[in-house]
């Protein structure tokens, strides 16, 4: 796998290193487990990491969903006393932050981790250990952030946390401290992941996999990673300044001391607007895989799909101030950002039309995955249209801070992003776990969810236009909001039921699979891209032989040609073009403790910053131990994974990224190969090191990485 790719062009000859020097490090022996629960903590396999991202973010979906249910229950009837104003502030803030940073982004990261290497024909990501690091940093940061509930209350300033409400004066609890430090920690994880996946897409493509042959999901995920690379440092700056204000007595956002609350708004939204594309583009990618597969047609206008994704990525940087039309920033700015916002609807509209054109004339199968993708197209269109209404500044001034805005962003982020992610779950579930989710329950899930969703958020358009303000913990009898609020609350409970149906589906399908295993085969949907060429569930080494790509939709073109009318004609049986997954001598990167050790230091430093700096000391020690342990550890354990002799032949001279490492009987030779890999480990570890080490010096810096 990544061993050969990690090997840089310049490497030292070697061969004279005793293996024991390479082998032991301090107190730890190299973890060996590749199966069982222990293996999950040390794995560097992109597939296991993707699965862990998925399960962890689904857990947080339940947490954030519970918070949503609290909000809707509080608002079901006027003058409700379920939540106090203070608690309500905490619940909606934590709901927003949880859904954005702990659910949608990591759920998209789950698909990105699992699918990106498979779709470009690679054996793993560019830096497998850094991949594990991003998972653990994110997960521990997410847990750290949620422990605020037990340590004085959650953040209460809204997910965008405007000054001066974010200052100590108006929010004296530690909630916003946890928000600032928690997001800095998760930002480290996201940056490491973004750098890793950017390099993976650029560098690890199979032979012949040019950029314009990559599946649309890979393209959209790649654009997201680039957006993350440039957007995260901006929020890092904002959070550093906020941390300095709250913990070290600076006055960056305190107008009474010359600070400017506006600076926060700009920095936050310069990050925050690309962030909304970071959340939606992966789902666009998923829909662009699902819709062609179930329409039996190639995606309509592939170059335009890619181009409009890139256009959204670029233009997403020029529209941030449309979140601030009501802030009084002046007519010229308002006009410029208003125009830019209208323009950005164009590439999005291109995508919507292309999906519909893909379906047009296709032989459509309405599986659950397809239903969710079509649901995405429909719901996102509604959300997109209400979004265009915000582009008109005079109208936006009316809508600002009302439930109309809440309706809009739930239509795009729930009806768009989350529907796409559910579509991806039903689509790739057999590939990932080796069994189907039940279609009948899946359809119940879909119809309940889309009904509940529209009941919840549809009425909010009306409530907003009637003047109901968001972030207000209750309303009174005479305001005329009673009816629609009750409808919205009923809808929210329907969504909760649909989630329960989904969970029951997973459990029931799993039980049936255990009782009566039926392998879905490599290609259950008659699909188009490379991940369907390997058995389900994906073998640990991904590809027996790295495929040589000759076309967009490579796998499809291996199965089908076309006749004079352009209709697909089968040219090869699926069984003949898929891989068997029986290669046994593929050299995979060894598991490692260090990513987890390193990541464990960060929350301790976080607690130290908030409560008592002495607590940061063990965190800093873990961090430094993690970095140096990592650097000194070869990326592959020389004493593991050799000696499987299998005659399965490998096309060793692929000459590209995922070339195989042939098994070697010569131990010294092996050690040298690993040492070369280790050299790469040094260089790659240089990359997280500035982040980590400076985070130990002052956690603010760390967030930048």
């Amino acid at each position: 796998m990544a061993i050969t790719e990690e090997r840089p062009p310049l490497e030292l000859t070697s061969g004279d290193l005793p293996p024991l020097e390479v082998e032991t490090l301090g107190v730890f022996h190299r973890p060996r487990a590749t199966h069982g629960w222990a293996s999950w903590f040390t794995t560097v396999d992109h597939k296991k990491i993707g699965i862990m991202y998925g399960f962890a973010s689904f857990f947080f979906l339940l947490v954030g969903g519970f918070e949503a249910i609290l909000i809707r229950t509080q608002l079901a009837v006027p003058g409700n006393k379920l939540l106090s104003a203070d608690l309500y502030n905490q619940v909606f803030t934590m709901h927003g932050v949880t859904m954005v940073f702990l659910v949608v982004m990591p759920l998209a990261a789950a698909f990105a981790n699992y699918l990106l290497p498979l779709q470009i024909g690679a054996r793993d990501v560019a830096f497998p250990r850094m991949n594990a690091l991003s998972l653990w940093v994110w997960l521990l940061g997410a847990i750290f952030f949620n422990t605020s509930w037990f340590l004085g209350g959650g953040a209460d300033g809204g997910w965008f946390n405007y000054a001066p409400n974010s200052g100590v004066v108006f929010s004296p609890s530690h909630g916003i401290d946890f928000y600032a430090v928690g997001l800095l920690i998760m930002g480290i994880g996201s940056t490491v992941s973004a750098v890793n996946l950017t390099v993976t897409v650029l560098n690890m493509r199979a032979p012949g996999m040019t950029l314009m042959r990559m599946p649309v999901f890979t393209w959209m995920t790649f654009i997201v990673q680039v957006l993350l690379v440039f957007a995260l440092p901006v929020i890092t700056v904002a959070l550093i300044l906020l941390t300095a204000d709250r913990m070290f007595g600076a006055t960056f956002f305190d107008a009474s001391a010359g600070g400017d609350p506006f600076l926060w708004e700009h920095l936050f939204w310069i990050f925050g607007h690309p962030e909304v594309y970071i959340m939606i583009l992966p789902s666009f990618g998923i829909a662009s895989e699902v819709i062609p597969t179930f329409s039996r047609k190639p995606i309509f206008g592939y170059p335009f799909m890619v181009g409009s994704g890139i256009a959204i990525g670029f233009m997403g940087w020029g529209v941030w101030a449309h979140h601030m039309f009501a802030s009084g920033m002046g007519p010229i700015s308002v006009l410029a950002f208003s125009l830019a916002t209208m323009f950005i609807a164009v590439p999005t509209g291109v995508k919507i039309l292309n999906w519909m054109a893909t379906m047009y004339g296709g032989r459509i199968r309405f599986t659950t995955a397809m239903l969710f993708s079509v649901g995405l197209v429909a719901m996102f269109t509604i959300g997109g249209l209400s979004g265009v209404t915000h582009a008109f500044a005079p109208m936006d001034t009316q809508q600002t801070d009302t439930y109309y805005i809440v309706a809009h962003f739930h239509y795009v982020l729930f009806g768009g992003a989350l529907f796409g992610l559910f579509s991806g779950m039903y689509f790739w579930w057999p590939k990932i776990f080796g069994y189907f989710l039940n279609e009948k329950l899946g359809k119940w899930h879909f119809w309940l969810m889309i009904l509940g969703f529209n009941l919840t958020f549809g009425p909010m358009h009306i409530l907003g236009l009637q003047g109901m303000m968001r972030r207000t913990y209750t309303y009174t009898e005479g305001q005329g909001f009673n009816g629609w609020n009750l409808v919205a609350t009923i809808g929210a409970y329907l969504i909760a039921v649909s989630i329960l149906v989904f969970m029951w589906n997973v459990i029931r399908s799993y039980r049936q699979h255990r009782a009566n295993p039926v392998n879905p085969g490599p290609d259950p949907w008659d699909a188009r891209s490379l991940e369907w060429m390997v058995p389900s569930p994906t073998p640990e080494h991904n590809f027996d032989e790295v495929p040589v790509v000759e076309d967009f939709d490579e796998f499809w073109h291996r199965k089908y040609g076309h006749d004079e009318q352009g209709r697909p004609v089968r040219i090869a049986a699926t069984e003949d073009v898929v891989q068997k997954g029986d290669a046994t001598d593929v050299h995979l990167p060894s598991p490692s403790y260090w990513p987890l050790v390193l990541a464990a230091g960060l929350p301790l430093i976080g607690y130290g910053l908030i409560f008592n700096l002495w607590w940061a000391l063990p965190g800093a020690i873990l961090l430094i131990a993690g970095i140096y342990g990592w650097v000194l550890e070869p990326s592959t354990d020389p004493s593991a994974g050799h000696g499987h002799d299998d005659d399965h032949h490998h096309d060793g001279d692929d000459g590209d990224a995922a070339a195989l490492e042939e098994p070697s009987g010569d131990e010294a030779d092996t050690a040298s190969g690993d040492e070369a890999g280790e050299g790469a480990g040094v260089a790659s570890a240089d990359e997280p090191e500035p982040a980590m080490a400076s985070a130990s010096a002052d956690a603010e810096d760390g967030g930048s990485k």
Partner: protein
Amino acid sequence: MTDVALEPVDDVEFPDDVHATSTGISNPKLAMWTYLASDCLLFGGLISTYLLYRNRPGNIPGLSGSDLRASELFNIPFTSMTSFILLMSSLTMVLAVNAVMRRDVERMRLWLVATSVLGAMFLGGQIYEFAEFVNYGLGYTSNVSASAFYTLTGLHGAHVAVGVLMLISATVYSMRRQLNAEAVETLGLYWHFVDIVWVVIFAIVYLIP
């Protein structure tokens, strides 16, 4: 760690498979470029913050905070000297990379140590400068312009400090095991970036009145 003393291996191989990746750039180097691109926006945000706040609080009555400005305390000749030292460390870094390309590990170590010493001198100068400012009464929380100044230059200093640590680590590592030539080059990318950022900070913060 074992106590087996190892002979440093002073040989560098230049294999033919330079195009082992799709782009022809190795993964670690491309990752460093990507990270440095990201860091540009970190410093961009902090420099913007400083530019916004450098004259605040102004003559608006009623605002709290000291009237003292960092810019009133700048010792341009002194900072020019430390800036010169930092720029010279880029030269020694180039020499270190050049040495490892010529398979001369001894020289490489020498230049790496020289680079880290120069980097440490710059840091010492920054600490001295900060101490002077604090003596004059300009603390981190004196006013918003001071906070912006210290945050920007302090974070740059943290980057330099991390670079110095990596240089020392690489030097020590090269005495125990083989150091990958490209690791030195990648480290060099980071170091040059930190220097270039300082040129921008020095010009914008110190030289523009």
